[in-house]
Every structure is written in structure tokens, then in C-alpha cells.
């Protein structure tokens, strides 16, 4: 792995006697969309708040681009763009004035860049209107615009798909992927929408009750090799089971007009061949791959907040 852009080392946050975040250690490399997944109240937003310096750390350190967020804040935050929770803007200003406001705070952002970003998030038509007239989706776009205004190396987005319609979500997803691949920046996205994360992220960290439970790679070959439950729709389930038992398979479940077996990709093909050879009509094969959601519920044990 390359030199990480973000290092969280033993990050701990205690408020009173309650430990909100417990010894969180995590490295994020450039060029990756990294998902931060957890049920409500797991500590996602608290972690993000500490990463951008809105909250102090009780213990541990966070380094961004090698600069400590606690000791060298101005340098550490220089290359970070973020939305924390909802993108709250100055409602009495126009979208454009909001962007100018943030552009003024970082040297070197030209008016040209502001227009470029406005175009990128597709707000050209409404950018001169007051933010109070914006829909939630438009505010979300404006939030993304202010976060990428200064071409950050690390983009932190807290629940970015909140309030976006399906087309907007898709657009955002494609855009984030493009940003991470083409510009090589690191994108850190938090969400409790599992299916969304599956489509958007390269890796996902799962946290629960302030503890890092697991870090997983999404997509890769490992998921394909994992044995999954395969449903096979046939005309004679009884005959199909007999044919398969003859090949030495066990644990076959019988259903009405279908059977279910545990098999990986290659085995599925072999089973199909056996059934066809036995003269059984196969209408459909459906592999039920464990989704991130299943994995997530498995790992967190479907536990409740508390």
C-alpha cells in the first residue's frame, strides 16, 4: 500500500464516562473510495468530526498528509474537503455567494474554478438563487461543490446520498469513482446504506459501538469464489435430487419446482451439466451471493443501538 493520506492511530473519544470511539486505528490510501459503515449511533459522525478538527480527541492521533490534526491543524486541513452531516449553507445568500465565501478562505481559488465546480455539480441554472429556495438534493450538490472547490486530496462525505434521487445518487457515485481513479484522491464516505456502499466503495470499514470490527474489500475475486446458496428451478425436483445424490453431493434442499444447494461458481456449472445429462429440465439458476448487508448483519450480529 502507498503512503496513506490519512492515519488514525488509537483514536479514542470519551464524553464523560461514555466511550464513544474506542481505539480506532485506520489507514486510508490515495485513489480509493473508502466506505465507513455502521448502524446509527456507531460513531461514524463523531469520527468524521474528529478527522476535520471539529471535535477534540481524548486519546490518539490523526494525521492527514503527515500533519497532525491536533498540533498542525491549518496544514492538515488544507487538503481536506468535507461535508459533515447535512450540507448546511447560508440560506440568505445565493448558492454562488456561498461558494465565494468558502473560496475566499483558501488562497488560489479563481472565479473560473468556482464556475467550473458549479457546472460539475450541475447547478448552473440555479446558482444565483438564494439557498433557501433549494431542494435538499440541490443543497447536497452545493455541499459537494464547496467540498471539492480547492481540489482536496481527501474528500470526506458524511451520508452523501441523503436526499438525492436515484439519478443523483448514480451521478454522485460515478463522480466519486472518477475522482478517486483519475485524480487519485482519497474519498471517505460514511453511510448506513449498505447496498449503496457496495456499489460505491473499494473497501469498507465496519464500525459498531465505536469499535472497528472489520475492514473488507468489495467486489474482488474473493466474493466470486465464496460458496453461495444456489437455487435451481427444475421440472422434477425429486429426480434432480436423486441425480445429484448419485454424484456424491449432500445437503440438498427440496422445494416446490426447485432445489437449493451450496455451491461456488464452478460447482454450479458442474451441477447444471449433471442435471441436463439426467434429462431434467433446468429453467433457471440463481446464485444468492451474500451481500454486504448479510455480511454486515453477520458481523454486527444485528445488534441494536445501546
Amino acid at each position, binding site marked *: 500500500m502507498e503512503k496513506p493520506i490519512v492515519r488514525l492511530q488509537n483514536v479514542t473519544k470519551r464524553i464523560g464516562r461514555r466511550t464513544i470511539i474506542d481505539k480506532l486505528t485506520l489507514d486510508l490510501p490515495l485513489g480509493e473510495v473508502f466506505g465507513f459503515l455502521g448502524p446509527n449511533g456507531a460513531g461514524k459522525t463523531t469520527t468524521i468530526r474528529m478527522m476535520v478538527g471539529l471535535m477534540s480527541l481524548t486519546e490518539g492521533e490523526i494525521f492527514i498528509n503527515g500533519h497532525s490534526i491536533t498540533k498542525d491543524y491549518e*496544514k492538515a486541513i488544507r487538503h481536506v474537503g468535507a461535508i*459533515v452531516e447535512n450540507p*448546511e449553507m447560508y440560506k*440568505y445568500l445565493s448558492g454562488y455567494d456561498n461558494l465565494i*465565501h*468558502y473560496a*475566499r*478562505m483558501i488562497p488560489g481559488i479563481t472565479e473560473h474554478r468556482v464556475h467550473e465546480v458549479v457546472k460539475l455539480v450541475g447547478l448552473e441554472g440555479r446558482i444565483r438563487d438564494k439557498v433557501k429556495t433549494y431542494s435538499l438534493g440541490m443543497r447536497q450538490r452545493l455541499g459537494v461543490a464547496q467540498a471539492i472547490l480547492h481540489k482536496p486530496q481527501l474528500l470526506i462525505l458524511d451520508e452523501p446520498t441523503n436526499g438525492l434521487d436515484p439519478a443523483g445518487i448514480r451521478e454522485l457515485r460515478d463522480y466519486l469513482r472518477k475522482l478517486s481513479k483519475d485524480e487519485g484522491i482519497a474519498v471517505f464516505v460514511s453511510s448506513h446504506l449498505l447496498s449503496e456502499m457496495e456499489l460505491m466503495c473499494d473497501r469498507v470499514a465496519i464500525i459498531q459501538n465505536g469499535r472497528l470490527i472489520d475492514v473488507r474489500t468489495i467486489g474482488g475475486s474473493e466474493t466470486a469464489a465464496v460458496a453461495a446458496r444456489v437455487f435451481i428451478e427444475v421440472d422434477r425436483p425429486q429426480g434432480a435430487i436423486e441425480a445429484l445424490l448419485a454424484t456424491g453431493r449432500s445437503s440438498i434442499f427440496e422445494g416446490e419446482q426447485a432445489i437449493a444447494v451450496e455451491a461456488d461458481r464452478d460447482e454450479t456449472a458442474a451441477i447444471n451439466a449433471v442435471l441436463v445429462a439426467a434429462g431434467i429440465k433446468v429453467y433457471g439458476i440463481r446464485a444468492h451471493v451474500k451481500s454486504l448487508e448479510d455480511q454486515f448483519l453477520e458481523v454486527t450480529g444485528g445488534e441494536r443501538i445501546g
Partner: protein
Amino acid sequence: MGDFLQLVKNENMKIYRRPRTWVMTGILIGLVLAISIMWLTFGGRDASMWDVAFIEASVLFLLVTIFTVVIAAGGVAEEFTSGTIKLLLIRPWSRSKILLSKYVAIMMFAILLAVLLFASTIFVNWVAFGINADPEVVPNTIPNGDSPVSYLMQYYALTLVSLVVTVTLAFMLSTVFRSGGLAIGMSLFLLLGVNSFILLIAMLDYKWIDYLLFIHLNLTQYLDGNPMREGMTLGFSLGVLGVYYILFIALTWYIFNKRDVAS
């Protein structure tokens, strides 16, 4: 890193793009006009422009204070209530500098209102009472021997000092409570409520009363030479105000720097 003036520009934008700022400014100048016109209508033209200007200044400066307190109390608190504080703080600026830019913008607004009041009272009353004035008419609210201009200047200078302290107090309350309504309410209560019975408190014969903030907020008591409590001097009052000022500033900055931003 970066240009601090840009931050002040931002804060100015947030003050002057809001209609309420212009409504308040309009009310202030409107009242100057209204008082002068009413005086002209019911009192005739045989008053000195300086008298009218002075009386308007003494009445309307309270309004300047109230309006600036409203803006100051909103300054930090509204960023918290609207949630914009999060996006404001995650920029390559220390919290101290962001707070300072707000403070500078608010002080600029305070001075702007005071200058507007001064200019409008002088101009309106010069038009109403000053042009071709009867040379027999002399100002009688202003002590003999003083030139009216220098007396008014001194009056404004002394009120400005208390304005700065009061606004700093409101700014502190805004930072501590993070609620605009509460900060405005508290500041105005302290300003109007306590000031109205401060004369009673001033009569009590305890030493510690000499160090109360509110005894010193009306510095114009020294202009006519009869202070609220015996033996107090302008220097002493300025000293006490100075200590309070430093205390307010230190507390404001300490709390703003220390605080976790969570909503």
C-alpha cells in the same frame, strides 16, 4: 497563510446581505428625520441645531447599541444554530482567527452605525435649524465655553467606549450560549434592565459596587462632572471597563477554541 481581510469580507457579506441590517439602519436614520421634523413642526425653528443634534444623539445612541448587540449576539450563535459553523471551521484557519474576523466585522458595524448617527443628526439638523439660523439662538444643553462640535465629539467618544464593552459582552454571550435568542435576550436585559435600576444600586454604600460593570457603562456622567458615585474618576471607570473587556475577550476566545462542535 491566506489573507485575513478575506475573512472579514466574508463576515461583512453575512451582515450586509441580510435585510434586517438595512431595516435597522433605516429605522435609525428615519428616527433622526422624524424627531427633527416633529421638533420643527411643533417647536418652531428657534432651537439651536446643536441642541437638537445632542438630544437625538443621547436618545438614539441606545438604539445603536441595541442594534449592534443584536448583530453581535447573532454573530457566533447563528452559525451554530444553522449548522454552518461546521463548514466554516473546516478551512485552513485557526478558530481564533475566524472568531477575530467576526469580531472585527461587528465592531466595524458598530462604528458605522455611530458615524451614521453622528453624520445624519448633524446634517439633518443643519438643514432644519442651522441654515440662516438666528444668531441670537445659542445651544443651552451644551456647557458654556465648550465648542458644540468638540462637546459632541467627546460625548460620542465616551459612548463608543461603552458600546465596545457592551457589544463584546453580547459577543461573549453569543459564543457561550450558542443561541442567538438567548444571547440577544440576556444582553438586552443586562443593558436595559440593569441600567434602569443601577442608580438605586449606586446609592448603596458598599465598596464592591465600585467595581460593578454597570456603574461604569455610562461614561458621559463625567462630561457634566457629576459621577454616579462619589470620588469616581474617568480614569478609574476606564480601568474597570478595561479589566472587564480583557476578561470577556479571554473567555470568548478560550471557550470558542476549546469547544467541541456537535449539534
